[in-house]
């Protein structure tokens, strides 16, 4: 697979429930071998979109293509899906549940058993193989669920809020496991509201809000689109330049540096030039990259962003 292969192509997809439009004209691509962050506040339409991708529901309009084919039941076997709302059979042995989930993905018999043993070992849960769900802690159940999504060695992994309910140690552990997938050139889509995690893991992102795409692309592109007008400055002198409203729209003084928002039309280069001209001593001049969190809050408008 080359970097330019598209694993998933979503085109103008719309889904309505009665009068409510859950997903509105959504389009995006997910490239092969990349980790794709699907971001947005609660109720933005993330889960609805994911359900359409994995073939649980069908879009009212638009089309979804997976591995270059239109979504079909057969393609489901190439996806590993970890839903946000997840569960296991309460009174069934772990190994039996995993065998069943594997069989539903067309992996059975000795091959299934081999993979189950491998993954239980990998997740440090081998001794729980013959225990029932109710004997396991929440975090352990979460890991079992993760195993159930990867048993059939899917080419595309879709994880809806994969880290919720995990302690920090296990979050790191899961990130390591995901890194292995990345190495195998598998595509990972995960939805989260934890912007720090998304920032760490994702190559590409899409941010949706109120059923619509807000911003999307590679993490770099997205950030660049937001970083042009913010500058962190540590300098002595040059105050006259900084009070020029044609250049500086807003300035916040932090402990030992200033954060500057450029006025519209002004650019960082001319500000730097003017500061040097004015004889200021500059020890730091940096275009500030906004965090995903900043972008998220700015775009979603703070409300409903408790997520």
């Amino acid at each position: 697979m080359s970097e330019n292969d598209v694993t998933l192509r979503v085109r103008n997809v719309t889904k309505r429930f009665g009068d409510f439009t859950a997903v509105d004209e959504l389009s995006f691509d997910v490239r092969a071998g990349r980790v794709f962050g699907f971001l947005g506040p609660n109720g933005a339409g993330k889960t609805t979109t994911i359900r359409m991708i994995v073939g649980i529901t069908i879009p009212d309009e638009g089309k979804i293509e997976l591995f270059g084919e239109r979504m079909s039941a057969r393609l489901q076997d190439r996806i590993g899906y970890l839903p946000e709302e997840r569960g296991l059979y309460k009174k069934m042995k772990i190994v039996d549940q995993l065998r069943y989930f594997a069989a539903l993905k067309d992996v059975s018999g000795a091959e299934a058993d081999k993979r189950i043993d491998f993954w239980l070992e990998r997740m440090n849960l081998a001794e729980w193989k013959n225990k029932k769900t109710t004997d396991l802690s929440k975090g352990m159940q979460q890991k079992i669920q993760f195993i159930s999504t990867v048993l059939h060695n899917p080419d595309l992994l879709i994880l809806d809020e994969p880290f919720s309910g995990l302690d920090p140690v296990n979050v790191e552990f899961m990130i390591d496991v995901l890194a292995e997938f990345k190495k195998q050139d598998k595509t990972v889509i995960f939805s989260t509201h934890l912007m720090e995690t998304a920032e760490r893991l994702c190559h590409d992102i899409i941010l949706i809000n109120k059923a619509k795409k807000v911003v999307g692309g590679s993490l770099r592109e997205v950030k660049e689109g937001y970083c042009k007008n913010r500058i962190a400055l540590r300098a002595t002198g040059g105050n006259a330049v900084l009070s020029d409203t044609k250049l500086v729209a807003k300035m916040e003084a932090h402990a030992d540096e200033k954060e500057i928002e450029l006025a519209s039309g002004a650019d960082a280069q001319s500000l730097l030039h003017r500061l040097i001209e004015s004889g200021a001593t500059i020890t730091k001049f940096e275009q500030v990259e906004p965090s995903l969190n900043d972008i998220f809050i700015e775009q979603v408008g703070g409300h409903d962003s408790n997520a």
Partner: protein
Amino acid sequence: MRKFLAVVRHEYKKVVYKWTFLLGTLLFPIIGACFAIIPAIIFSIKGEPTRIVIVDRTNKIAPRLKENLSAEKITAKGEEAVKDSAKNLSVSQNDQLRQSAKQAAAVFLFVDYDSVGKTADQIRSELSDLAVSKEIDAYLLVPDNVEAPDAKFEFLSRKAGDFVAGDLIKEALNDAVRSQRLSDAHISEVTLKQLSAKVNLDAKAIDEQGREKDSDMLLAASFAIGLMIYITLAIYGQVIMAAVVEEKETRIAEILFSSARPFELMMGKLVGVGLAGLTQLGIWVASIVALLAFIAVQSNLSAMFAGLPHITPLMVFYFLLFFLLGYFIYAAIFALIGSMVTTVQEGGQFAFPPIMLMLIGFYFSFAVIRDPNSSLSFWVSISPFFAPITMPVRILAETPPLWQIALSVGINALAIAGLVWLASRVYRVGMLMYGKRATIPEVWKWIRQG
């Protein structure tokens, strides 16, 4: 198809590999066997003899009473009672046990006691002392004025709870006193017996081939079949509902739906649980056959069950076929309910209508037993919801023409197709709706939108 089979296997194992299934399956034949075998065992146990003193200064009653209480007479009476009870369903198992027990414990030992020249009070206190010192178990005082209509007999027993001895003495005494009064009226014993001989009405049905059927045993067998199907349908319907609700409640449905088609999943569930039900019924049918075989070799019981209708392998086939038809009708309804509600408790409230339908079907089977060829019997045995219970009963009572059976199968198969279609539409939407119970208009919308 492979996935469908995986679902079937999963659902089957989930029901069958459970100790409750084992318990339920074993318990039924064991309870059945107990009811059939325990009386036989009690037969063979002879109770301790009741030592009794009969004080009869007139010497008119005592000889007759002693004869009536002899072992032979009691056994003969007991066998008659068992035969009667087998024919009469209203006699509870308790009574049956009582009657069987009568034969067992019915041994009386008559203790001599010299009452000459003693007053009634003297006799009473002497005999009471004997009873207290456990030398006798009971005594009976026959009054001097036996002939008088208000003659009062006194029976005192150390074994206060011994209803068997009490009942037997009462019966024997009644017989003895009546005989004495008759003979006092110069009616001879022989004439008396001739005059008071019981009419022997042996009710039998005649089937279309002109063979006789014992209607009482038929009633019992038909009732048993109807009850068995009703209970199994109710149990397995609820199993389906619980399984559906579990997958919805735990959100497993979402994983399942991302792996296989909802229709495949629902049908797999219905078939898997259905096979589990069939397994259980199969074990029961086999154990009933074994039980009948056991009864056949027990000579003293075979008389009791001699009138059992002849059950052919074809009847067993029909029985299982109609069980399956009923199962799929009700399982589809329960699956539909399960995907509407959010918890098993909530489902329990909605389970009322289908359970009601089954119960009505079960009650209709009584009408069918009474008159298998009436038009009511015809209609209820071909209509969906009721046919799965009433048709097997009708087949056993009076096998209807093949076209009626075929018609019933056809109508019920159509009903299944319709209900499964409805259920699958509700299932695939309802299973992903969390948080609140679906309302009927919502469900209707899901069905129409599909």
